[in-house]
């Protein structure tokens, strides 16, 4: 795993449908400056900058990292961009961490963002290519069949997705940065919303958000403030078209989890991890990832959700921040998971702090469930 690496600063913007008050550069600076302030540092103290975001077609700015370099204090420093679709926020943190673990730099600023309001993600994800049939379905239309297959194969009752939609939005009410704030949300409200891509209802879907998230990562000798220590990092990918591919519980996700657990000494994730921030953009992905990540046996994830184990007061809270279901600046969504995991073990998560959290999982996935990025952070040094 290399040298020790710590998160010493976290910065987030308020997530909204439209941040009309800031430019893209202003948006990323808002997060970066808050992360630096949290670490008690300035741009001068940073050795390198790693930027992540989802497809350029979302904002129509090609190679935005070049344009954003000086806005993020990267003039005269190494700067690079990461892109692994929806998992990019997580991958960005891991690329930054690898620069510390490899001994290349002492302090790295990692930043990820999306300004979805500049266009429309469904449009950008459904470019109708010549020679093909026109099925404009966006991300929801892509994932709905796999959720249907999960429901069939596991025999999960239809209300499980509703429970996650309610739980994550209630958690969001405790998070000042969260986009969706729906006081009084309950099962009846979720179930009264229309099926957008059956079996996915409107309120079982993530919002489209503008926002950015940033972290300052540090080597052991350069730590300032309160560190969250990195105990394991892993990325995996797999081809989207492959005969026999399990699209409900992809092998790449299982392998990625096994790798990160091995590094962190986790043998039973439900017992050894105190809190998890997992990329759940559609409510049914909570029980699906509970199984893929080994928190429950195959076909049993929905029972964990139904029992309340993943609620804020359960034994393994998932998405105490409100998760992707409550805030979704796509490129940043993975980094937010990683950052929220760090906040929990630093004890600085505010009203959504899980008492006594010492070990946390940050998770992101992207593409057609083909790209996975995970880390485990802890209060104690590895």
């Amino acid at each position, binding site marked *: 795993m290399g040298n020790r690496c710590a998160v010493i600063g976290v910065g987030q913007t308020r997530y909204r449908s439209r941040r009309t008050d800031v430019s893209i550069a202003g948006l990323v600076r808002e997060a970066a400056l808050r992360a630096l302030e949290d670490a008690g540092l300035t741009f001068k103290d940073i050795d390198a900058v790693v930027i992540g975001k989802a497809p350029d077609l979302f904002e129509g700015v090609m190679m935005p990292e070049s344009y954003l370099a000086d806005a993020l204090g990267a003039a005269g420093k190494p700067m690079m961009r990461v892109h692994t679709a929806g998992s990019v926020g997580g991958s960005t943190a891991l690329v930054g961490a690898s620069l510390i673990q490899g001994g290349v730099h002492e302090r790295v600023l990692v930043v990820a963002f999306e300004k979805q309001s500049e266009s429309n993600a469904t449009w950008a994800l459904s470019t109708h290519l010549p020679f093909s049939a*026109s099925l404009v379905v966006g991300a929801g239309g892509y994932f709905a069949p796999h959720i*249907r297959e999960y429901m*069939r194969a596991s025999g999960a009752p239809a209300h499980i997705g509703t429970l996650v939609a309610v739980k994550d939005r209630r958690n969001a009410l405790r998070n000042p940065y969260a986009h969706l704030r729906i006081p009084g949300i309950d099962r009846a409200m979720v179930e009264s919303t229309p099926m957008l891509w059956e079996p996915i209802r409107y309120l079982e879907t993530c919002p489209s958000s503008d926002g950015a998230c940033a972290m300052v990562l540090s080597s052991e000798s350069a730590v300032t403030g309160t560190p969250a220590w990195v105990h394991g990092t892993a990325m995996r990918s797999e081809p989207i078209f492959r005969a026999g591919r399990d699209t409900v519980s992809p092998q790449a996700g299982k392998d990625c989890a096994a790798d990160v657990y091995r590094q962190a000494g986790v043998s039973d994730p439900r017992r050894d991890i105190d809190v998890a921030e997992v990329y759940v953009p559609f409510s049914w992905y909570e029980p699906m990832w509970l199984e893929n990540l080994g928190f429950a046996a195959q076909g049993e994830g929905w029972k964990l959700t139904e029992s309340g184990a993943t609620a804020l007061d359960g034994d393994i809270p998932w998405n105490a921040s409100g998760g992707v279901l409550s805030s979704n600046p796509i490129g940043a969504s993975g980094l937010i998971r990683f950052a929220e995991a760090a906040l929990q073990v630093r004890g600085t998560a505010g009203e959504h702090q899980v008492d006594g959290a010492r070990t946390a999982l940050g998770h992101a996935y992207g593409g057609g469930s083909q790209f996975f990025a995970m880390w485990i952070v802890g209060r104690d040094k590895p």
Partner: protein
Amino acid sequence: MPSDPLVARHVLEFPGGYTRTTGPVIGRFLSELRARRIVGVRTKEGKVLVPPLEYDPMTGEPVTGEFVEVGPAGTVTTWAFVPEPRPGHPLDRPFAWALIRLDGADTALVHAVDASDPTKVRAGMRVWPVWNDRPTGHITDIACFVPEVTEIVADVRTEYRLQAGGALRVFLRGVERGVLLGGRCDTCAKVYVPYRLTCPECGSAIPETLELPDTGTITTFAVNNLPDPRAPEVPFVSAYILLDGSDIPMIALIGDVPAHEVRQGMRVKAVWVPEHERTASMANIRWFAPTGEPDVEQP
């Protein structure tokens, strides 16, 4: 009424128009306007009056004679909407009369805000002047005020020339004659469709094509209810279809069956467009329709 001989039109208009001496303060204000600047005057109490007066209207004292450039932007303090403009109005379309406190001024100026409907105006909104092309030293040198620029539209457009080559060309040539071409991996024996040159599992070459039937089984599907101008009419069913003899499902539209009757395991067959309409495109397959055979049990 006009036909009533005891009703007449009577116009009073001094030939050439009244002259109006401006005095030193208003004269300076209008001269500055002609030069596309807006000035106010400072009172003895230090307040900046815009438009300027020769006296402080609160105390009656003379003003100091110090002119201060203000604006050009300002903030709307209150407004009234004019849905039907009259001939003497500054704009010939609906607009708002507004009191605008220009930056650096202590009083508000009355002017027109170009806004198409009342929802576009609010107290506190930031506005900027639009200048007339030919200023003459008149308050109408400012044509109107408009909202601050907060957003632009970027004309981003890329155009490609896509040429179907390699495996795709082979596959589309098959589709053109109503045949679905796949290929079997030499090493792992999996059958891929559409035809591709290499196996994504083991990387081996797939040298030969294999004709597949246009029948298969729905493995799973979504019912799409979100309308999009480029998509089929909602609700439409997008399904993964495992063609008979293949090892990987294809995504396609399901038709000739109500959306709520589609099932996992349902047997389907391609519905091709008539031969004379066919091109080298997947649009050749209108959709897949149920065959009526018994469902295939899913593992």
